[in-house]
């Protein structure tokens, strides 16, 4: 039996005492080593759900446990350093070199400089960037895809057990995105970490996820392997989502014929 990495119990989030919940009484168990993708349209609560794990958003009710421990009982800084976080806008520090960006958390944790430097080299290699070429460059000298590779390396710096990725490839062109998706999958396979990735792209969700969460209006509509979701949609919403994607594919087939 595998370990439970993250457990949501009856978690809700209500912004500014509004009359609807952005996340509505969610129960969810994520096992260690899974690559879970959260799929939904904008405003469905998927990003809120993700950000509650590293406490960038505090839930209004319910509990979230990380490896059996309530995240509210943990020191918030330690909690966050143990979780990798990648966002769509990347958020690299523009005044620091690529090496300095990646070694931010190792430095905060007072790693010695040899260990930090070796780690920077390893990580850049892992994300497909030549350390000798990129280490001393600044973020503005990199393309969008390269920046997100660095973002990924920075999030992996202190070897977190859990990685949170908030539409990491949302602003990247289609071809680069495909490459990055492939590499993200192989990184996940190699590292045995738990990945949770938010996306609104159904193809991305089904391609990357070992399990997919489909969200709508703050609730989880289905949580299963991509295969099972396609075979047995839990409700009309999920069924229509899959149908719409099929229709899109049909468009290409007609075009070719």
């Amino acid at each position, binding site marked *: 039996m595998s370990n439970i990495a993250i457990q949501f119990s009856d978690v809700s989030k209500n912004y500014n005492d509004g009359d609807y919940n952005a996340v509505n009484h969610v129960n969810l168990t994520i096992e260690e080593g899974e690559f879970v993708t959260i799929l939904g349209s904008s405003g469905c609560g998927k990003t809120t759900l993700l950000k509650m794990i590293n406490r960038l958003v505090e839930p209004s009710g319910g509990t979230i446990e990380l490896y059996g421990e309530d995240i509210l009982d943990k020191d918030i800084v*330690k909690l966050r*350093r143990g979780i990798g976080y990648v966002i769509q806008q*990347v*958020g690299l*520090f523009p005044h620091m070199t690529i090496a300095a960006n990646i070694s*931010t958390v190792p430095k*905060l944790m007072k790693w010695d400089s040899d260990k930090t430097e070796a780690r920077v080299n390893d990580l850049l290699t892992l994300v497909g960037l030549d350390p000798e070429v990129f280490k001393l460059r600044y973020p503005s000298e990199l393309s969008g895809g390269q920046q997100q590779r660095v973002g990924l390396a920075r999030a992996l710096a202190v070897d977190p057990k859990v990685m949170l990725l908030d539409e990491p490839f949302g602003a990247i062109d289609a071809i680069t995105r495909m490459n990055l998706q492939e590499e993200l999958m192989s990184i996940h396979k190699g590292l045995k970490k738990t990945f949770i990735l938010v996306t609104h792209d159904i193809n991305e969700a089904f391609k990357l996820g070992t399990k997919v969460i489909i969200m709508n209006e703050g609730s989880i509509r289905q949580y299963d392997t991509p295969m099972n979701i396609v075979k047995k949609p839990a409700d009309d919403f999920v069924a229509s989502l899959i149908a719409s994607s099929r229709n899109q594919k049909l468009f290409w087939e007609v075009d070719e014929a």
Partner: protein
Amino acid sequence: MIEYLLKYGDKLGTALIEHLVLVSITLVISLFMAALLTLLAMRSRLISKLLVYTFSVVYSVPSLALFAILIPVTGLGKVTAIVVLVLYNQYLLLRNFIAGLNDVDASIIESAMGMGMTDTQILLKIRIPLSKRAIFTGIHLAIVSTIGIATIAASINAGGLGSILFDGLRTMNVNKIVWGSILAAGLAVSANYLLGKIEKAL
């Protein structure tokens, strides 16, 4: 005129040094106070708005009036001058400091928070380095404005280049008026030029 410079050069020199000392003391106190108030302002949007608004009101009071208001409290002389100059600077410094620090891209702050940086680390390692230009602009404005207003402080016996000017006006001594003006204006203009150069290099 050159004769006057040769004869009373030491007098002009003393006034210039007095002026520079007044400006320096004011600047050190102003920066210290503005740094503390900025830290306070970073805690809440309300405090930040309140501070900037309050000092904008103070800033709008003419300097002579502010000197006059403070004379019953701190008397004639340098102390009153410094208090007034420090108060004026708070508006220039705070507005630029707060705007600069808050202007850092939200996604950069979010990723820093997500990485587990504390508020202090985010301030020191991210916000301040990324807003150094705005911070320096505030300091630049404060220095030039202090040099100017400090001239008026001579009217309450705070010394400096203003005292040469006021003396000249009282006794209708053209030499004093001209040299006082040249030095006061020259100091402000050259400080402005130099600081502008530094600002560009940042």
